[in-house]
């Protein structure tokens, strides 16, 4: 198997609302292609000439453009955004909020196999085209729609509210301590997002008093015990990540780029009830998520001790809470300790989401996996700017789809 290098990429500003700007998917794709090429140090000519020998391919991650923008066939759509993609193999990958991780997985495999030397991964979602209730119904299709989402307002906050309930009942943790840990997770993510010039919430205000006072006018409950401050916010956005083979690096005199060290990919039962029933015999509330992490450690030959920075899928504070033990930062049931003692904070020993995560950076669902991956690249290549974690050599990300149904884990390092 050949090594897979990351040579760069780009992210759009997640603060932007493309519908308010009057712009369509073509404007979004054109922008991320221009910026992604620049970030990776390639251009249209690179793609055209590699394609003459069938050495380049595109991988598009998107959850549900058919609903939000009435557009399918998204792999092929890139040709409309830039004609350099004419003739380039390209397809769309879907795994709900883990869609761009599925695209990354395919791209990594193709480079590992020596099928291609350059793989262009684009994850995107335009979500501000509809009101929040309609959008929430679309997102319900990431659950088992008929059983868990049909005619239910805001199904996902409910499901992750139930995850919070499960965490409480499974582990012997004081309720207030648990809820305060969730509030602190939100506050850490908002604080981290302030250092990220592309985050959605960089101008927003949040503090512990606001996050821990739930069921108020400005922090209403949205799903069980979870309030607005416990939720990530949907947004519009696109991310490009460019992967390359060793051969490409040598041909172009590119040196010292991070590479993919390992991955994990597991799928849990789709129905939340079944997921929880199955987890009864495990120490972990999300055993298949934990397993995907273990798979990645195993494939990379690394342990949690080797990981300097984490990016996780905090679609809700409860999912980040569960991820803390899944990563192995604490034992299952002890997650709150890593929140309380600062382990996961920006200056802690195991920083989680220096980017701000989904809560702080924003969650354009089909782009989030690629965004985390790009952030790991930035961290281990020392290009994360104000949110750089000092001396980060290895980073791990967890991107989940549905109610922690699909779990994708990648380790990027140097």
């Amino acid at each position: 198997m050949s090594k897979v290098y990351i040579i760069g990429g780009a992210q759009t500003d997640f603060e932007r609302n493309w519908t308010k700007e009057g712009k369509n998917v073509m404007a979004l794709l054109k922008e991320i292609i221009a910026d992604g090429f620049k970030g990776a140090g390639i251009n249209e000519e690179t793609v055209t000439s590699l394609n003459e020998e069938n050495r380049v391919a595109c991988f598009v991650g998107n959850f549900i453009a058919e609903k939000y923008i009435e557009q399918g066939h998204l792999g092929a759509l890139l040709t409309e955004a830039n004609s350099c993609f004419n003739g380039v193999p390209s397809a769309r990958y879907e795994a709900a909020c883990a869609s761009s991780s599925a695209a990354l997985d395919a791209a990594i495999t193709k480079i590992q196999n020596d099928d291609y030397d350059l793989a262009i991964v684009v994850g995107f979602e335009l979500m501000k085209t509809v009101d929040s209730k309609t959008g929430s119904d679309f997102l319900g299709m990431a659950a088992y729609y008929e059983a868990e989402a049909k005619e239910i307002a805001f199904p996902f906050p409910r499901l992750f509210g139930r995850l919070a309930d499960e965490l409480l009942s499974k582990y012997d943790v004081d309720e207030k301590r648990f809820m305060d840990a969730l509030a602190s997770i939100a506050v850490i993510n908002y604080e981290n997002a302030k250092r990220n010039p592309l985050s959605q919430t960089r101008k927003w205000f949040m503090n512990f008093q606001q996050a821990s006072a739930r069921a108020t006018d400005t922090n209403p409950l949205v799903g069980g015990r979870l309030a607005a401050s416990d939720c990530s916010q949907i947004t519009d956005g696109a991310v490009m990540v460019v992967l390359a083979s060793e051969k490409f690096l040598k041909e172009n005199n590119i040196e010292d780029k991070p590479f993919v060290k390992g991955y994990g990919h597991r799928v849990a039962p789709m129905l939340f009830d079944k997921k929880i029933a199955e987890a009864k015999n495990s120490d972990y509330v999300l055993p298949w998520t934990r397993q995907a992490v273990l798979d990645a450690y195993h494939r990379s030959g690394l342990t949690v001790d080797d990981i300097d920075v984490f990016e996780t899928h905090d679609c809700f504070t409860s999912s980040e809470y569960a991820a803390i033990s899944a990563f192995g930062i604490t034992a299952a049931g002890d997650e709150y300790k890593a929140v309380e003692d600062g382990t996961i904070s920006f200056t802690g020993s195991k920083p989680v989401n220096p980017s701000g995560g989904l809560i702080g950076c924003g969650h354009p669902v089909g782009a989030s996996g690629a965004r985390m991956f790009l952030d790991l690249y930035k961290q281990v290549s020392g290009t994360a700017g104000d949110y750089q974690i000092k001396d980060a050599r290895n980073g791990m990300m967890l991107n989940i789809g549905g109610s922690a149904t699909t779990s994708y884990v990648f380790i990027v390092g140097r």
Partner: protein
Amino acid sequence: MRTIKTVTVVGANGTMGCNVSAIFASFGNAKVYMVSRNIEDAKAAVEKAAKSVRATAITANLIPADYSLLSKCVAESDLIFESVAENFETKAEVTRKIAENIREKTVICSGTSGLSITSLAQQLPEELRGCYLGVHMFNPPYYMTLCEVIPTEYSDKALLNDIKDYLAEVLLRTVVEVADVPAFLGNRIGFQFINQAMQLAQDKAERGGIDYVDAIFGPFSGRAMYPLVTSDFVGLDVHKAIVDNVYFNTEDKARDSFVFPEFARRLVSEGRLGRKSAKGGLYRREKTEDGKSRILVYDIMTDGYREQTEYDFAFAGKMNAFIKNGEYSSAIAELLTDVSAEARLCCEALLKYIVYSLRCSLDFGGSIHAADDVMATGYNWCPPLAMLEAFETVKGFKQIAKEKLAAEYLERYDFEEIISKVEPSKYDYRRYFRASR
């Protein structure tokens, strides 16, 4: 950095006073005395302030107060923010009152949007003048992060730097230090553009006037809000005060562009001030019979309100279509080549905006980037350096300016010096050029 634990906002029941209180209480986690006309107004302002930053939790930091408590609040505070009515005598009187009870080294800020900070500082005893600064935020400050900081010749340099750090790092403001000139930097540039649009409306009254001009400067011209809608939104009285201040108190080379047009003067005198007046202003919102609302426009020719006209300028239609698809360079090329009167008006105004902004930036902001900061974060307009870059996707800006603007105009602003100081913008023009939805 200086610790600001307690703040007194004087005039906290006003829109800015209220919103600024929220910024100190949230990001700054300061205890804020909200001194208002009466205690009921102050209590209402506390609620409004918390809503403005979407955080009920900060209510604990907001203390309602009235003027009978002013001396006690001032004596306890590390920073006083004066935000009373935009009138020199009113502000001068409040400033003198603040001085009576102040602790040594307490910072005194005025939120004036353009009155002389030096003259206000002179209301204070000499030993207090070092602690006095203009701190001008834009509305609503939760979304507009611009904060112009205006020192005077008396200002203590260390204190100035401390406060700039505090505003930037703790309150997350985009801090721009500007000279103590009428309207400072943001409003000097912004209201020159808006006032020229107003003058153009008078000039083109027969073509439709107000909505005609707004249609020429739609979102495709690099702004979120139409220029005359902006004037209507902030109020014609405020607009008038700003441009009169520049007209009467400066030797601006573009002084004539600050003359408030006759029809607008008439509207102000009749109390038709804009969105805040029931009588309307440049536009008027009306309830229709079916309970919906519609927005009528003031017709300068008839001195009445009429339905807005759906102008269909070919250049605007094409620019919108290009921008919708992310083809910004094609949109700018269209603007440069369309020969219609409207396209030429739009193009010339944008080019002059770039030249004038950069001139003011160098003269009053001390850096070529100051105008970018103020226009992006105070107005949400495409900032000048970024707009220059948009034009450069078609051809060199120097060449464009020489082709499209009179030599005399360019000379007046020492265009060669401006061009020699141009640097890449920190802002991305793409987000500011919008398509009409």
